[in-house]
């Protein structure tokens, strides 16, 4: 029985044996997973583990050497517009003097939108998107003058204005202070509850359980997928981060290895959570 007003969850992303090659190097190796709508999924893994490559493949800007990716049952190239991308901060040319409103209006850009015109409907959508991420009051501020958290909200608003049902956030917390991270997470949770599918690449293992419904552990292939509490086992951690991964076994969610010992978890035992 589905509660009235609650979006019905459905499979929105599906990757089947997806492989990406750069020359002779395999960046993604038989990556298989699926993600439901109305979920917030953290993608974790080491640098060079293929997180950005996976996002590029989901967004349709990276060709697969083998396998398939489906976005709402379509190939990523045919699902363009359904995926909103919040890029890593170093991928953006901050020299460009654009206000928050300018950036969000880019979400309304199509091949046929000529002479930079916005329709009244576009204007309403831009305003609504900025209000949803609580950036309407700063709409005329240049994005290069904003904090990391504010910039990420502006890019989220752009994805919302675009009408994307899937939001990909690549290292969205990089350069964002903890307070702003929490504010951003709250916005994302509201969007998730409205039925958006949110994937975020992150390095912060300590806050996974608080922030995400699911995690995908990626080191060129999917080492594990599941809830943050169950996905990490010592073997998964070692697969992700090598022998040093075992040091995470002494951590658990909300405790960072120096705040006392978890009485429920003995060394060598599979941790139920980080």
């Amino acid at each position: 029985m589905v509660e009235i007003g609650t979006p019905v969850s459905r499979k929105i992303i599906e990757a089947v044996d997806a492989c990406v090659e750069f020359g002779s190097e395999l960046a993604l190796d038989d990556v298989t997973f699926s993600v439901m709508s109305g979920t917030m999924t953290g993608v974790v893994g080491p640098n060079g583990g293929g997180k950005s490559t996976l996002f590029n493949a989901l967004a349709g800007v990276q060709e697969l050497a083998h396998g398939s990716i489906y976005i709402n049952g379509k190939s990523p190239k045919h699902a363009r517009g359904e995926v909103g991308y919040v890029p890593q901060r170093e991928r953006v040319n901050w020299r460009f003097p654009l206000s928050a409103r300018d950036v969000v209006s880019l979400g309304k850009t199509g091949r046929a939108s000529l002479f930079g015109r916005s329709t009244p409907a576009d204007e309403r959508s831009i305003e609504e998107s900025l209000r949803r991420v609580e950036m309407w009051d700063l709409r005329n501020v240049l994005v290069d003058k904003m904090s990391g958290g504010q910039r990420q909200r502006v890019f989220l608003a752009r994805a919302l204005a675009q009408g994307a049902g899937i939001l990909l956030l690549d290292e969205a917390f990089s350069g964002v202070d903890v307070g702003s991270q929490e504010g951003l997470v709250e916005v994302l949770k509201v969007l998730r509850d409205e039925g958006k599918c949110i994937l975020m690449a992150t390095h912060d293992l300590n806050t996974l359980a608080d922030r995400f419904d699911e995690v995908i552990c990626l080191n060129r292939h999917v080492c594990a997928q599941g809830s943050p509490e169950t996905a990490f086992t010592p073997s998964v951690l070692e697969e992700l981060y090598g022998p040093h991964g075992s040091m995470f076994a002494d951590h658990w969610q909300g405790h960072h290895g120096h705040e006392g010992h978890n009485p429920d978890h003995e060394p060598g035992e599979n941790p139920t959570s980080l």
Partner: protein
Amino acid sequence: MTEIFAVFISPFEYSFMIRALVISVCVGVMCPLLGVYVVNRGLGFMGDAMAHSVLPGMVLAFMLGVSPFLGAIPTGIAVALAIGYLGKSFRVSEDTSIGILFAALFSIGLVMISLSKGLSVRVEDILLGQILGVSNTDVIITFSLAGLVLIIIAALHRQLVFTSFDPLGATVIGLPTRWLDYLLLVSLSVVIVVSLQAVGIVLVVAMLITPAAAGALIARRFTRVMASSVVIGVFSAVCGLYLAYHLDIPSGPSMTLVATAIFVLAVIYNQIRADQ
């Protein structure tokens, strides 16, 4: 009053000055319009390289006794496409490949000048610009090409801004970013070529970047930077034209110096505003 008339109005009793004015306004509008992209995307070196690289095409046109546009425009477009391709396709950096290409082409042009006997134009005019010598055909070609580029830049304004600001995001949303980059480079090469008679090969980069840089100091948002830069560009080009006429100096340096003076004023204005 008579003196004002002598300085500002009387030059236009000559038809060559009216032609020069049309070209100046075209250059003053088009160079900063593309210049804001050049400045904000860090393409200054590329713009300078494109200008130098069209020398062989121009010299060939003069040797054949045809309009310099017939040599410079195909060369400029070919160079723009080559630069776009080289920057993405080889294991040498973009700056390095551009540097090698432009130095080689400029050298070929200089060798052609040395070997050719009795060129119908002074080398100094090619390098520094001589706006007072333009023909009616030059005006028609310049006006038409400038208008074409203006329509393209205006029509694809949002796409070009998106591609310049966040190329990956633009690709994700479905924009043909690679083609837009090529289109911008080709437009830039056309603007450079139509500006050569006014400011010359050596100084065209100054009209591309100086008004745009000054505009960025005066205004904040991109569209306002664009508008300010165009106003500064037109003012620099027309003032430079007057200086070239009255002082009998090449038009390239005179336009450049006016633009530079405005840039210095913009720096001072920006500093005062920051201190307040």
